[in-house]
């Protein structure tokens, strides 16, 4: 029995929405990072599913690029967090509001 591709695409869409809503709703910066990762992995799942459905290796290659870039993004993000933690305790996005939007 094979699971149809549409199911994977739906799962990826749900993961993406969960990540996007989390990023906008949660206030802990570390949790916000996790939400970004969730969104990027939803993208990966979509690419792999389409690659299987189209029988095209190109979609799987994209995933490697996304993984590497996601890792680099997390490194930069954690660096910024560490810089903030050194100046103040806690990493809540609401506290970081010296600049008026």
């Amino acid at each position, binding site marked *: 029995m094979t699971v149809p591709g549409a199911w994977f*695409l739906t799962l990826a869409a749900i993961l*993406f929405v969960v*990540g*996007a809503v989390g*990023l906008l709703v949660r206030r802990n*910066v570390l949790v*916000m990072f996790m939400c*970004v990762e969730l*969104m*990027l992995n*939803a*993208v990966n799942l*979509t*690419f792999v*599913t*389409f690659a299987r*459905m*189209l029988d*095209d290796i*190109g*979609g799987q*290659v*994209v995933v490697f*690029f*996304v993984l590497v*870039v996601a890792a*680099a*993004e997390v490194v*930069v*993000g954690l*660096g*910024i*967090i560490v*810089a*903030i933690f050194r*100046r*103040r305790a806690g990493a809540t*996005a609401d506290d*970081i*509001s*010296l*600049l*008026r*939007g």
Partner: protein
Amino acid sequence: MLAAAGFHVPNLDYHALAPEIVVAATLAVVLVADLFLDDDNKWLLSNVSGWGLLVALFFTIELGARGHTASMVGGAYVVDDFALVLKGLFLVVGYIVLLMSANYVEEGDYYEGEFYFLILCSLLGMVVMSSARDLITIFVALETLSLPAYMLAGWRKRDLRSNEASLKYYLLGVLASAVMLYGMSLVFGFSGSTLLVDIGKATQGTITHAPLVTVGIFFIAVGFAFKVSAVPFHFWAPDTYEGAPTPVTAFLSVASKTGGFVALLQIIYIGFIGRSDVWGPMFWALAALTMTVGNLIALRQTNIVRLLAYSSIAQAGYILVPFAVAGSNTKSIHSAFTASVVYLLIYAAMNLGAFTVVIAVARKTRSGDIASFGGLYEYAPGLTVLMTVFLFSLAGIPPLAGAWAKIFVFRAVLDSGTSSAVALGIVAAVNAVIALFYYASVARVMWMSPVPDGDRTPIRIPATLQAALGLTVLVVVAIGIYPQLFAHLGDVASLVR
């Protein structure tokens, strides 16, 4: 063994890649040399970076003069006139930013080597972006230019405002990348390719009306709207621009924004040209909102950097206008494309010039308030005249370069000729008048207000800042008087024939 697995070594044209290779080599040298230099000799790094950019610029011009074109990796990486003109722009902008930051970085108590390394990394991403004709290449180039920019925004790392600028920029930047990437995955799924050319064929043919492709195009456009800080996706920009070091702000508001627009130009005009029913109305709304909201909020700013931030948001709106009107007929596609490219070239010169004056004045006043520019004419007449030139150019007053940029936009609107395009043209014209108010009010403070603290000692401008000012004012005035020069570049740099 690789050959047995069906692997073919891609045929690379190293001559056509020379600008990228030079920039990459320079940044590697800067990174390593930084480890071995004493603090007294760190200034060498800015010289090395500057020369690296000039050599890369030389190769770019040489390739352009020879008419050398190349298409590599199956069409994913293309060196053509469009790519070369934009590479030249990025390298010149990078060089001017180096000139602007040399003293600023030397006199601050933060790391020097890393600053130049990060600027060069970001520039490498932009140079690659100009040639990227494939969704993966565009994504990687966009991240290469964005990741160093997040760090540059937080470069004053013991200053909480700089940290906050960096964090806000980072969080919204990665959100934008994720949204854009999801759009790319949907487009890939329905076109079966990541090459823009193939996507262009597919969106004009069989899959024209698949609803998920519409969603994909929408998501990609939203992702780039974040990058170019179009309203309603602009809210990170003023905070990031204010908190970041001023030379970095200039870099973000010119180079990083142009990078986003270059990607958008390639994706829209090659990949999605057949689907103007999706992106036409979207860009119409984005352009109208971006111009109006940017200008209206700029009216009540008291800080010069925030004012320039909102002004650069509004300027992005003018660059979006040609996108909105491009889809109506073949003639308007061409003139809309040219208008966007010409506007990007001119915007870079005038905005960098304005930021250079702000840096020069802040060296004395140590303040970003517009009030601190009071009576500038009494002790720095040269800077006052230059700032007035840049502000009036941004406002679009002839005979300065900014006027021609706006004329190109209006010509694209007229070539399109539809009623919605004319409506957008009217919105743009009204906005040009609103913008004049705040640009002129800064000029009025400089020329007519008294000096706030009575300190009339003249400003000593370092040679590097003088060079940056000279280059930018030369471009702004020369194009104002002889616009054919840039119109020609805009025509050469066209992806649509």
